Each structure stands twice: as C-alpha cells, then as structure tokens.
C-alpha cells in the first residue's frame, strides 16, 4: 500500500475515532437532561385514567375526596387551640386567600431556612398562630385541611420557581429522583422519565406529576398525601422509605413541582 493511501486510511480512522469520542462525550454529558420529558409531551396522570375514574374525578358529587374537602371546610372555619382562632379568622374566605397557594408550594420558610410543604405549613400555623397541637401526618384532619386548601388552586397552573433560595433544594430533589436506590437498584427516573406510557402490571406508568394531591387513591380506598404516595413507590422499589415529614420528601416534591411547572392543579385527583 502506498504511503499516501496508508496516511489517508489512518487519517480517516482517527477522524472516525474522534467523532465517536465526541458523540459518546455528548451523550454522557447530556444524559441527565436527555431523559427529561420534553415540556410539550408532559401529561398529568389524569390522562392515563380509564373513563370511570376520569368521571369520578370530574364529578364533585361522585368524587369520594369531596368528603374530605367538606371536612376541611368545616375545620377551616372552626376555632382551634389556646388562641381560639380559626383559619378563617386570619385568612378569611379560602376561595380568595388560598387561590394559587398549593400551586406554588413547597415554599421557602425564612425562619427555618428551608422549604416547607403545605402540610407542614398548616401545622406551623396551628402551632404558632392557633397555639394548637400539630395534626398528625395522614390524619383525617390534616388530609381534610390540605385537601380543602389545595382544592382552591384547582385549575391554577403550577408556578415556575423564581426563588433562588430554593435552587439547592430543587437540585437535591432532582438527585433523589435520578439516583438508583433499593434492592432492585432502580431510580424514579427510570420509570417516570424513560418508561412512562408503558404498562406495569395492569396500569399505565404515569409521568408522576403531583398535580392532584392529596389524591383519592383507589388502592387505598382513601384520600392520601403525596408523601404517602412517594413512600408507596419507594417501598415498591424495595428501598427504605424516609419517615413522614422528612426533608427528602419536601425536596422531592419541590423538584416534582418544577418538573410539572405549567400543568394545572387538579386537587383532589383520583388515581389507581
């Protein structure tokens, strides 16, 4: 083979190798972003429901969650604690004062220098403003109040975060979402970013947007919080679930809400 031809061959090979390396590097670098669902392809878990469940969510008189919302309304107006104060005494008509609140939660709490979710915010009000005992996680009362408050944001698009103080917490949430965990060594992203729309047992894998919380879950035959649902997932993945109220849940919820930014709130949702 002539010198020129050999040089040409090596040159071609080197260029191909360089291209391959560049391609690999690009793929690896964009890995985290590449699995994210494109904004225009995002859909709420509502779209994956069968017609009966959609009808259940759409009709307030058929949605079992309405029972909790009604309870929440009663609690909103009831005097509580040593301060003998109702939520309504400070916040007035929830339909006005609470509109849009759930759509921008979790929110930064300056006193605590960290974000708090809606349940914790309600308990902060109970202890600091009403001088009442905090409500237990997943208690009927806390679920009812959370459902009532979040219900006031139904139809409101989830807000895009503009608070720079929340950035590190959103990053922490993203890390939890993308990290493999548990016995099966799975991450949330593997199902909900990469395999949404496909079936797992009899159900469609949803994208996992927290648009309808607290939800009436058919599996629970009860209303439940996002933390309960996240715990279900984590246990299902054969990983250890954090305790209720753990900062990991708040970080995850913060990330999930940003991932769902722009999608309208549906509380109270119905899910399988």
């Amino acid at each position, binding site marked *: 083979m002539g010198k020129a031809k050999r040089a040409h061959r090596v040159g071609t090979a080197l260029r191909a190798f360089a291209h391959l390396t560049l391609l690999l590097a690009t793929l690896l670098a964009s890995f985290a972003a590449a699995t994210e669902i494109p904004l225009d392809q995002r859909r709420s878990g509502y779209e994956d*429901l*069968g017609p*009966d*469940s959609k*009808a*259940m969510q759409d009709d307030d008189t058929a949605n079992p969650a309405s029972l909790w919302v009604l309870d929440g309304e009663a609690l909103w107006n009831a005097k509580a604690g040593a301060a003998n104060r109702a939520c309504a005494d400070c916040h007035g008509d929830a339909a006005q004062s609470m509109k849009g609140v759930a759509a921008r939660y979790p929110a930064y709490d300056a006193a605590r220098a960290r974000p708090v979710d809606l349940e914790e915010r309600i308990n902060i009000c109970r202890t600091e403003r009403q001088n009442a005992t905090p409500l237990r996680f997943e208690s009927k009362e806390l679920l009812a109040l959370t459902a009532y408050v979040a219900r006031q944001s139904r139809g409101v698009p989830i807000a895009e975060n503009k608070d720079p103080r929340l950035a590190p917490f959103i990053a922490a949430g993203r890390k939890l979402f993308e990290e493999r965990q548990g016995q099966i060594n799975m991450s949330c992203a593997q199902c909900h970013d990469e395999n949404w729309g496909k079936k*797992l*047992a*009899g*159900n469609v*894998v949803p994208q996992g947007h927290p648009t309808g919380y607290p939800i009436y879950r*058919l*599996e*629970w*035959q009860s209303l439940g919080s996002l933390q309960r649902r996240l*715990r*279900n*997932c984590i*246990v*299902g*993945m*054969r990983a250890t679930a954090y305790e209720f109220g753990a900062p990991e849940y708040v970080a995850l919820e913060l990330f999930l809400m940003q991932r769902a930014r722009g999608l309208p709130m549906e509380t109270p949702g119905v899910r*399988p």
Partner: protein
Amino acid sequence: MPVEIKGTTRREILIGGLAAGAASVMIVPAQATPERMQAAIRNVVGEASVKAGKVKIDVPPLVENGNTVSLAIEVDSPMTATDHVKAIHVFNEKNPQPNVLSARIGPRAGRAKVTTRFRLADTQTVVAIAEMSDGSFWSASADVIVTLAACLETL
C-alpha cells in the same frame, strides 16, 4: 372465631373441630367459588329458571384497581306498575363472599339502573340478576380481569 364454617363438607367440619380444640388454627378464609355463587343465586331465585337477557352490566374488562371498581347495572324494562324490575342482585365468583349488592326498586324508579363501586379480589365473572314483577328472572354476566397494583404499599 376467625374461621367461617359454611356447609357440611368433611373438610369444613374438620376445620371447625380444630378451631374448637386448638389455640392456634390455620386460618382458612371462606372462599367463594363458582359453586358458591350458584348457591347464592339459588338463594335468591329459588327454583325459577334464570334467562339470559334484558340486563346490561357496565364494568371495565381490565380494572385499574381491584379495590375500587365502577359498576353499572341497567335492565331493559318499561318500569310500569304492571311490568317492572323489583330487584337487582349482583354476585361474584371469587371474592370470599359471593354477594355484592341487592337493590330493591320498583315502578317509582322510572329507570332500572343502579351504579356503585365494588371490590374484586381476583380475575373473575360478575353476574347480575334482575327480578321482575311477573316473577321471572333475567341475567347477564361479565368477565373482569384484575391485577395487583404494581407498587405495593406494604411488603
């Protein structure tokens, strides 16, 4: 007593004997079977023959979750004083118990339609029977596929 004693088969009397004597007993839940469902149906219709027709069952063929399944039963009937549905009975074949619902309606209903949400323990057949004012019975059945939720809450 955790064990239900139903019927007089040898196996069931044996379990009853164990339960009476032993402190700890193998817990055997009373299990519905197609035979038990037939027995439950006989309980309602007696010796009358049950004809297929007039009844429509609306249930998803593959449920989203067996814990809460939407169900609608509608019967083709003019619902007049002389020609109406007296009752609608719903049965299942694989839950621990064969009965689901018995609804007594009548000409005041205007329409023979009842909806509810029920539980299905496993893939099985659901049967709905309409009891008519003339004493006749009509039925329909539906096969439903039930899977467990993909991610279970408790291990």
